[in-house]
């Protein structure tokens, strides 16, 4: 009680909104400082066993001819229209693997999401380690069709050529699995689910052949038959999880150090390693991480605690398949050295250039500060509501500042006991009604979540339009219903906001530990919510201004923003989201509809309260 009364009596209470604002500002500024040399670090190899680029690579010479002949086969198979269903592909590629003397397995899968059917057949072969005991494995993967829908002709051919080549070495201590998936999105997921026996059997077939625990995955994406200019390393996993930084560092070091190939990240094709480019790389990474979708075939492996990257050949240049093959060879030699699972280096990081990063300890405070701002605002509202309670009573006596007031504030903590039964009941009703309202709105979020994950893709556009329109009027409508049926006081509104902010702060700080970027982005988008109050005494213009601002910050606006950012139609984004929910187990939507949207609705109700509540 002593602490509360001292808090109430001092000016701290008035300062708390300022502290909230400061938290947001510092949080954002913190993030903007990260690309500077003083705050980010150069990457380094943490696991000594990796020894990147320490071995001589021998892929080349006659292997190049072998590669070219496989590429002819792949191109021919790709041109054959009947092969796109991948049954023929699996048959043919399986035959090639079989000819090397490798054990071959095939897997059919079929997913349905948003009314669409995604089916195909994966094929893979296991090279049993001459020096191993089949307890550990590495995966070299190429998708038949890459994420852009192009035939991955050189990538698949390279995997075939490497399978033939790597089999001749006797130094492998881990099994190597050569995997050709029939597409880039559903295929890898079906395969890795089945590898860990977590698939749904009728739709996704079980694997006939397995090896040990997968230690690392390298995906090759090389869809042209021309030379390439630079190597694009894709590393984002599903739900914003990342592979161990050592894997990326090893790939960067081998590619640029040993093979002299330029490496790029996050589609930043020209990176001058200055502040602006670093910041853009970091923000692009954060958007990918925040959306939590699969950015390549490697993404599906990461939730299984398997470190995976995709190597994409980009541009026109003088590097050819032999250079890429030798990069992969060297990378596999390094991975082969691993004594235990990747664990030395960071799992939480933001990369801002191929050799510059910040780790979680440095960047986490920015998201946490933004989450804390909501909690501080909630505490301020809680303390203020205690004060308002006594203030109300005092106002009935014409608001005269008197000894009575001091007495009331002193006994603020015990107001219920002093005033007896009626106050207790009303106080409990007050809390209960506000809490029930907040919880009900949060459960309301399951409706759009269910809707957008289960509708047919044909209806997405109309559903989205209807939902957007409803969303505009929903806060006012809810507020009208709420005021009509419960006759809430301003104190109710303050408590509703208090609980809503408390929940938002809590969700975002928990989320920041799982997916920093999503937490940060949603935190920034919803930061105005902290400062929204019902303004009963002021003119309706203030309320309208707030409402317009809020309408610009809804999850639906964000969806449109994502569609513009990717340059794809809205229905494609919604389709991707529904696919992600069904196949990848992506939970970005849960956060959007059950955390962000309810907080937004409650902010809207607060604003609408300006018109509804009498002062």
């Amino acid at each position, binding site marked *: 009680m002593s602490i509360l009364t001292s808090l109430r009596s001092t000016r701290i209470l008035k300062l708390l909104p300022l502290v909230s604002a400061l938290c947001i500002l510092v949080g954002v500024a913190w993030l903007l400082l990260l690309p500077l040399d003083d705050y980010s670090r150069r990457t380094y190899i943490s696991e000594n066993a990796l020894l990147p680029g320490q071995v001589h690579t021998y892929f080349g010479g006659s292997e190049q001819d072998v590669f070219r002949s496989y590429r002819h086969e792949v191109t021919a198979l790709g041109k054959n229209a009947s092969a796109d269903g991948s049954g023929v592909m699996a048959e043919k590629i399986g035959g090639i693997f079989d000819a090397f003397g490798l054990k071959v397995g095939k897997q059919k899968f079929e997913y349905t999401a948003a009314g669409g059917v995604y089916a195909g057949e994966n094929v893979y072969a296991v090279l049993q380690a001459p020096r191993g005991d089949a307890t550990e494995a590495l995966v070299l993967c190429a998708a038949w069709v890459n994420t852009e829908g192009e035939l991955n002709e050189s990538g698949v051919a390279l995997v075939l050529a490497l399978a033939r080549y790597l089999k001749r070495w006797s130094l492998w201590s881990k099994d190597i699995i050569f995997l050709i998936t029939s597409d880039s999105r559903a295929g890898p997921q079906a395969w890795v689910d089945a590898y860990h026996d977590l698939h749904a059997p009728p739709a996704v077939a079980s694997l006939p052949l397995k090896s040990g625990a997968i230690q690392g995955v390298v995906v090759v994406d090389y869809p042209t038959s021309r030379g390439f200019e630079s190597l694009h390393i894709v590393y984002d996993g599903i739900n914003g*999880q990342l592979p161990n930084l050592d894997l990326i560092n090893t790939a960067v070091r081998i590619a640029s150090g040993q093979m002299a190939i330029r490496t790029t990240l996050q589609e930043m094709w020209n990176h001058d390693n200055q502040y602006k480019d670093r910041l853009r790389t970091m923000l692009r990474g954060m958007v990918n991480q925040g959306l939590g979708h699969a950015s390549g075939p490697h993404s599906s492996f990461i939730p299984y*605690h398997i470190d995976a990257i995709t190597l994409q050949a980009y541009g026109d240049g003088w590097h050819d398949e032999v250079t890429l093959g030798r990069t992969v060879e060297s990378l596999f030699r390094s991975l082969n050295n691993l004594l235990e699972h990747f*664990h030395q280096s960071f799992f939480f990081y933001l990369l801002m250039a191929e050799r510059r990063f910040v780790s979680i300890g440095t960047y986490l405070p920015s998201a946490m500060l933004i989450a804390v701002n909501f909690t501080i605002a909630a*505490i301020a509202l809680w303390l203020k509501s205690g004060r308002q309670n006594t203030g109300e009573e005092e106002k009935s006596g014409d608001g005269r500042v008197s000894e009575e007031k001091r007495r009331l504030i002193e*006994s603020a903590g015990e*107001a219920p006991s*002093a005033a007896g039964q009626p106050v*207790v009941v009303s106080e409990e009703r007050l809390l209960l009604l506000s809490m029930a309202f907040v919880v009900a709105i949060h459960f309301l979020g399951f409706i759009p979540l269910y809707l957008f994950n289960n509708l047919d893709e044909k209806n997405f556009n109309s559903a989205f339009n209807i939902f957007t329109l409803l969303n505009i009027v929903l806060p006012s409508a809810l507020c009208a219903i709420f005021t009509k049926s419960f006759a809430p006081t301003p104190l109710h509104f303050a408590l509703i906001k208090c609980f809503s902010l408390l929940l938002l702060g809590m969700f975002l*700080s*928990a989320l920041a530990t799982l997916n920093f970027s999503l937490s940060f982005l949603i935190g920034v988008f919803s930061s105005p919510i902290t400062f929204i109050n019902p303004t009963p005494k002021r003119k309706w213009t203030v309320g309208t201004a707030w409402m317009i601002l809020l309408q610009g910050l809804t999850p639906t606006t964000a969806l449109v923003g994502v569609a513009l950012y990717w340059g794809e139609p809205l229905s494609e984004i919604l389709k991707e989201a529904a696919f992600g929910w069904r196949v990848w187990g992506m939970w970005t939507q849960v956060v959007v509809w059950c955390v962000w949207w309810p907080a937004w609705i409650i902010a809207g109700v607060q604003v609408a309260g300006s018109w509804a509540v009498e002062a």
Partner: protein
Amino acid sequence: MDRRSFTVIIAAVVLRLVMFTAFPSLPDLLTNRVELSTPVTSFKRLQEGLFLYTHGLSPYDGGVFHQAPLLLAFFTTLPSNPIVVYLVYILSDVLSAYSLIQIATSGVSVSTPYHTSSRKSSAWPPWAVAAAFLFNPFSIATCIARPTIVFTNTAILTAVAKGVQGQGIAAVLALAMASYLSLYPVLLLPPMILLAYDNLPAVKKKKGRSLGSFAAVLASVFTVAAVGLGTLSWGITGGSWEFLASTYGVHLLLPDLTPNVGLWWYFFIEMFDSFREFFLCVFQLHLAIYLAGLCLRLRKQPLFVITTLLGISSIFKSYPSIGDTALYLSLLSLYRHIFPLMRYTFFVTSTLLYATLLGPAFYHLWIYAGSGNANFFYAITLVWSLAVTVLVSDAIFAVLRDEWETERPEMKGKEIVQI
């Protein structure tokens, strides 16, 4: 039982049935949560024990099953339909709620023979206390996860309900059952005797029964009951005393270091073996150390001693779970009248909520994502324990202040400082 209590119970039963049937994967999901199921209460381990038992093997072979033999006998008589199991757990929760209603109706939490709170009028009615237990998300999650702690909680609440009605023998028998199921309720024996003695019907008290003789009778009844249950278990497990080491031995010696919300597992993972015995003694004694002090200082309110001891053991016992905290919170709701005197309610509520969210998140990072480690989860269990500790001590403060203000009404609302 009035109509409102009845409505609350019906609503809670329906809610639980819906949770069990509408989300068929939910019970198994929650059963695997370490926060809800500990090695000594887990439903999954119970099934393992049942399998061994019905196949004529010793259920304690293999070191997986650490629960009382009577549970085996009870569950083997049930039909193997999961609905029946759900109903048993729901019934157990209903019995707990019924006991809470009895306790609240008796009004012992606000007025005992030695103390009547001046805030008596603001206590919650029985139906609200029942609702606070039945609709507490922790209680619901515990019920759905089906750990056997549910039965222990029912036994404890039945004992307390009998205690407030002055039925000493029945109270002690129920307490013996609770102790038989999970050992630590044995600590509640002294306050339970005090509670039953204070609430003896006036007729019996006039006969001049002293507290000493009353306590002696009840203590011997407790011992006889405990020995009886032990012997019964001996018979059930085919004449072997193996179960003693596998159940109570596990509570006492902590051989299974599966993480839980408590403070022991991490401490004993890190411990060098040579210190293990010493610290086991220290940790166990620490639990018992509060008993005498609380009984003496709060002699006027033995029900609150029981509540506080349950709160303390939900933090410091060897395998605590959310179910223990849910039991403490439901008993604490009997003390609504002292809430205004508590100083950290908002802090405790938000800390508990934060820990509830961050606990599973950090556990996920540690176990599934592999990007965190054991320290993440342990840090959150520390925060959780801190919040419960603050709550327990804050409640003690409020009750003492309430007693003090009853003695000295002129001090109401004044600031006090402990010297």
